[in-house]
């Protein structure tokens, strides 16, 4: 039950972010929607690595208690780093677009301009 809820939230975030990008009227909103869509992957990855009654992946030398999967946690970390850098780069692009075209509405950006 809780598993389906976890996967459901992951899928929901992904689709919600995608719909946000499609319906966006402001480029900053587009960038944030992309972050929301990427947040779905964090939930999915951490959900995959979860184990009932398992501890955090910080172990002692004679570890008895099982721990959750560290591999997906490391992948989540990579995911967050990539998301943050992409957000920074896209926001930089947004500032340039706003300067050059005088608008941040994707619908008004029709033609390429040098």
């Amino acid at each position, binding site marked *: 039950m*809780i*598993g*389906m809820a*976890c*996967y*459901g939230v992951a*899928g929901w975030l*992904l*689709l919600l972010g*995608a*719909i946000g990008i*499609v*319906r966006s009227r402001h480029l900053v909103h587009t960038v944030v929607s992309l972050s929301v869509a990427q947040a779905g992957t964090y939930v999915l990855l951490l*959900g*995959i*690595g*979860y*184990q*009932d009654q398992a501890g*955090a*992946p*910080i*172990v*002692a*030398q004679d*570890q008895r208690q*099982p*721990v*959750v*999967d*560290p*591999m*997906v*946690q*490391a992948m989540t*970390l*990579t995911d967050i*780093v*990539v998301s943050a*850098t*992409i957000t*920074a*780069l896209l*926001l*930089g*692009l947004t*500032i*340039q677009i706003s300067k050059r075209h005088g608008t941040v509405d994707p*619908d008004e950006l029709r033609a390429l301009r040098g």
Partner: protein
Amino acid sequence: MTLRARTWLCAAGALGVAVLLVTAFLRMPRFGGDLHVYRDLALPATLARMTPNLVSSVNFDLRALDTLGEETIVAAAVVGTLSLLQPSPAERERIEPQRGYVMPVVKVAGYLLLPVTLLLGLDVVAHGHLTPGGGFQGGVVLATGWHLLYISGSYPALARLRPIDWCEYAEAAATGLYVVTGLAGLIAGGAFLANVLPKGEFGSLLSAGTVPVLSVLVGIEVAAGLVVLLAQFLGQGLIREEHS
């Protein structure tokens, strides 16, 4: 395409993806079960390398090559943002130091939290192989702690204490030294980024071989990179509007 048509097209696509996701999720291994193949492989390898923090061991030892790629992404994003947000000569003339009023309580809180945050950042970086944390997390804490000065309203102080040039050099040097550490592993251990340093005693600060070394290098790189990145965005905020 109108917004309405686009929304319907997106809704159809989203429905398709949702069906695929649900079909996939229904065939996943049991949620919370004990089937974790990578964990079962990583745990003994990590214990043999004297690294209590499994995630750090995966990041900086077992899959250190991936972290090199990740680090390069950060460096590339910083370079990209630097070139995108470079003020033009006309904009440079309109840059003015920030004016405005900052509440005294915000100032005091900023100055009080500054040393605490910097210390916390250093702690998170230095103990990355022992406790939750590591280079990426600690680097972000360090860079944001630095910018508490900006929130406290002392932009001149921040500008003085923020040698952007040196941050750029530090970022490049840390990325380069990561590769050098990898090459040292190649020469001494026969594999790129092999963990060749002595592993030390389990749980002590100087243990786990190259894990803390790479963690500190990544910490320097991320902290310096983020300072440069935030400086570019904050610099944009200082450019006066043309029409005002």
